[in-house]
């Protein structure tokens, strides 16, 4: 395949993300990777549930005293919206509308950045209260679960920036269409994990 093969919206395949053998491999491989990630997060969730509110005596941090829902709600909205914007980006990718795709991706990135900013603020706030990583089993489990998710967001942002910058002048082709597509899968997956985090960690935490 030649990278410089130029497509038009009319010659652009219906499924550019799986149009070549390499693309098919990447597509399947990435889905499998997400299958593995499911277990990774499940283990983290399981551990968190087992250690939730498990603190040494004399330490009175608990989900109920710690978590504040308004912040979490804003974060949730940011991330959910970014999921939608990345859907828009893929919509334009499939229509071979490179510019629009890049714009929607950039928006996705900014929403993600906003989310991450709030998360950093949240962690910073907890730490200033004395709820540090080493405070208790509860704190370790909390930071590791939520932090691993945050790390995924951060990695996603780096990935996205590289994609946007690297291809800015090249435009869409069958070589990078899969890369964009797998990125969007990844981004949705991060959202999936967050849905469970806000439910299991924050909402259930506040309920008690």
């Amino acid at each position: 395949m030649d990278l410089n093969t130029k497509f038009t919206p009319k010659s652009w395949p219906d499924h550019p993300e799986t149009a070549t053998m390499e693309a098919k491999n990447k597509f399947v491989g990435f889905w499998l990777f997400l299958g593995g990630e499911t277990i990774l997060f499940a283990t983290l969730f399981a551990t968190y549930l087992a250690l939730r509110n498990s603190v040494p005596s004399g330490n009175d941090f608990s989900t109920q005293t710690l978590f504040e829902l308004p912040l979490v709600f804003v974060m949730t909205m940011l991330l959910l919206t970014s999921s939608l914007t990345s859907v828009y980006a893929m919509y334009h990718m499939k229509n071979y509308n490179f510019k629009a795709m890049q714009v929607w991706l950039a928006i996705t990135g900014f929403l993600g950045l906003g989310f991450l900013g709030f998360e950093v603020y949240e962690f910073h706030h907890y730490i200033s209260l004395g709820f540090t990583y080493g405070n208790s089993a509860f704190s370790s489990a909390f930071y590791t679960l939520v932090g691993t998710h945050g790390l995924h967001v951060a990695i996603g942002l780096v990935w996205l920036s590289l994609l946007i910058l690297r291809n800015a002048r090249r435009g869409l082709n069958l070589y990078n269409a899969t890369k964009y597509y797998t990125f969007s899968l990844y981004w949705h997956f991060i959202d999936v994990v967050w849905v469970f985090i806000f439910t299991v960690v924050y909402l259930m935490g506040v309920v008690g």
Partner: protein
Amino acid sequence: MTTAANTVAQKKGFGATLWDWLTTVDHKKIGILYLIGGGFFFVLGGIEALMIRLQLLVPNNDFVSAGFFNELITMHGTTMIFLAAMPLLFGFMNAIVPLQIGARDVAFPFINSLGFWMFFFGGLFLNLSWFIDAAPDAGWTSYASLSLASTGHGIDFYAIGLQIAGGGTLMAGINFLVTIINMRAPGMTYMRMPLFTWTTFVASALILFAFPPLTVGLFFLTFDRMFGGNFFDVDYGGNTIIWEHIFWIFGHPEVYILVLPSFGIFSEIFTIFSRKRLFGYSAMVFATVLIGFLGFMVWAHHMFTVGLGPTANAIFAVATMAIAVPTGVKIFNWLLTMWGGSIRVTTPMLYALGFIPSFVMGGVTGVQQGAAPLDYQLHDSYFIVAHFHYVIVGGVVLAILAATHLYWPKMFGTMLSEKLGKVTFWFFFIGFHMTFFLQHFLGLMGMPRRVWTYNADQGWDLFNMISSAGALLMAIGVIVMVINIIMTTAKNERVGNDPWEDGRTLEWAIPSPPPFYNFAQTPLVRGLDTYWIEKQDGNKKGYIPAEPLSDIHMPHGSFIPFVMSLGLFIAGFGAMFRVEHSWGLPVLIAGLVLTFLSMSLRSVKDDLGFYVTKEEILRTERGSK
């Protein structure tokens, strides 16, 4: 860079050859690298085993100290499982599976190479613990209360080394999965895949689901020991049972990751040397999948004595026993494959024949352990040691040795000596039963495992001595095999496509060793045992091409996997010595930066591979005739 991967290696200087191996992404070469790496660690683990047996030769022995003994067993178990058995199997999977499905390469050649180098550097990291500070000493299971209490950096080496090697394994697993899903030749439906391919597929799926928990567990351990985490520290609200669950959620599937490919290898051997198709092929496939699936439901049988309560114990006991059924289906199908066949007892077949009774013995003791109340007696006694060496050595190691003889001609183009092969077998086989059979009784007679020494006159002296003598016989067997390999390589008598004469699957249809692009034309598959069908139909070429001869697209070699793994290796040291040395943190960061920079380099620098021209293919094909 290496457009010249096709120029024959002999013409190159040492530097170029080395560079070629460091950068190769060819699945056949990576297979060989895995064999070299795994073989090295197998000998290392074997030497550790010999030292264990030497220490236990007589009561109150002081050949090694108590602390050193614990390091020995830990490193023996860890090395054998993660750095010997699995990589050796990966070696054969890499070398053979793409050929069996008629592919030119694996789905992700780059990731394949990355997987190897991560395994290699992880193993190196782990074993450097012998020279730096201390080796891990909390058993290969590294139960949390002890592994947190262990002083020195031993456990840190374990956690970080396995993390790196485990990452490599996960990548290898995904790579095999996608290869088998996407790269099959036309006509190669799932139900026409050779059993070795099937078992590789299921084992890789197990890797995909079992290794993430290990990753998480090791992270917890790393954080608890090095970064102030409290997952397992009871004083801070932590819980050590979590580690046990996580470890065995990984650990039990792990043993099936080992044994399923071994089953696959034996399935190939039974069909080839019985000159008969596999009896009950679809049942075999189904059993493989079922074993893989059930493998995830039984982990707590390692924790019967932990105090999970009768309900949990009962559920896991019954689930455990269920695995005997699909495994039995396999055993009987193999027997019936032989039945009515024309059995030729070559060296590989000899191993397969040795495997059946040995593995059944190991399997049935497993079922006994699955009976929870009985396991209260057996757990952590030498009975367990006997059980798992019967299944691992009698199943996995025999399979590896068998595959070495079976696939050597395919991988290297020369036949290992049959005579020496049989000598190896008999020494190894007799030594194996001598070592481990009596250990069942040692366990029943009250001997706990992982004991550094024992007092005389508890009734264990004689059996231990016999057991130790057996280990020596195994060592002789392995040494004979090494001699065999050296002699064969020196003689270098070339063999043709199908040296065993009764080959059935696609890998036997092409030259030994295959050209770097494997199949000049992608084959068309018409049924199970493709090559056999074509042979029966008198097809001289060995397979029907599914495409006209045309240029072949191949990936470039790359040095990046090596550098990425090196970066992680360096970062590991930084993480470990972060607290006591000021250089720790910078080294940690530098290593990670190296890894991520080379990774981004890879994703930014497009690598579209190169084409092998038609003429070149024709030249090569003629040359190999």
